[in-house]
């Protein structure tokens, strides 16, 4: 049997970008911190766009530790959600519109989050990438790191546990 022709690139790109935007754009707090996500294939990089209001120590100056923590947590939850939803986005079961409008769609919830501050955050853009160590039926474990000028010298890292969305209880 002949192999199916791959979908046109624009179709794939549009489907994935629309779904990612639907996951990210609905969250006011992500807008407040001005965090964007850069997608290359299935890989996401969080980008924290610098602003004066993110400063925690005006004397150094340095980014607020809470901003760094929030940036890491946002990157962890979005990456985890993205990986969780991606198979149904690719199969066509779930589209961007449903992610925005379907009230029954739930996102992972943070159970705990631990941040290691390795260096002070410089007053400029920061980047973060999360790695889903395990995503089970109920719990997920995610680690995430953030860097600025040099990827090999992260300025913070974190790990956290998340409660995965539970499917509706079925009548037995």
């Amino acid at each position, binding site marked *: 049997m002949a192999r199916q022709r791959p979908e046109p690139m624009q179709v794939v790109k549009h489907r994935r970008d629309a779904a990612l935007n639907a996951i990210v754009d609905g969250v*006011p707090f992500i807008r407040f911190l001005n965090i964007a996500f850069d997608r290359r294939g299935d890989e996401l990089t969080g980008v924290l766009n610098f602003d004066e209001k993110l*400063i925690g120590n*005006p004397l150094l100056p340095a980014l607020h*530790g*809470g901003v760094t923590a929030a940036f890491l*947590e946002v990157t962890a939850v979005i990456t985890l959600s993205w990986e969780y939803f991606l198979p149904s986005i690719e199969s066509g079961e779930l589209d961007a519109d449903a992610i925005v409008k379907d009230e029954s769609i739930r996102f992972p919830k943070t159970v705990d989050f631990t941040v*290691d*501050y390795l260096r002070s955050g410089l007053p400029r853009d920061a980047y973060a990438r999360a790695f889903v160590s395990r995503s089970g039926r109920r719990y997920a474990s995610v680690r995430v790191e953030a860097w600025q000028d040099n990827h090999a010298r992260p300025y913070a890292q974190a790990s956290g546990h998340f409660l995965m969305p539970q499917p509706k209880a079925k009548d037995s």
Partner: protein
Amino acid sequence: MVDKAAIARQFIEAIPHARALGMKLNKIGNGEAEITMPYNAELVGDPRTGVIHGGAVFAVLDTCCGAAVMSHPAAPGGTATIDLRIDYMRAATPGQSITTHAMCYHLTRNVAFVRATAMDEDQELPVATASGSFTVEGL
């Protein structure tokens, strides 16, 4: 004698991000601090429920812990977070402000140990608890 509480209050209220989140320092002294953050729709993490994002709660807890360290009688001045862990017990009730209370329960020459809680108007069950270690630095 230096009024450390006054210095800490000045320092905290000058933090741009603390202002952006609307943090108010209610109490400080003797290694304890209390900071409140009002409800703000811009800080919502899930637009379907209106619940404040955990990251915003983390920021107040971190600030409150830092303030507690600075106000410790044996602390020489500044501090920075080494690590901080937050456990999220439940979603904060939409519309309610969040009050954090931190206590620096032990301080060595180099490290300060802190615990904190975040409450909304329900005084029974905290929204989140935190524990962390902080550096001890001169002014």
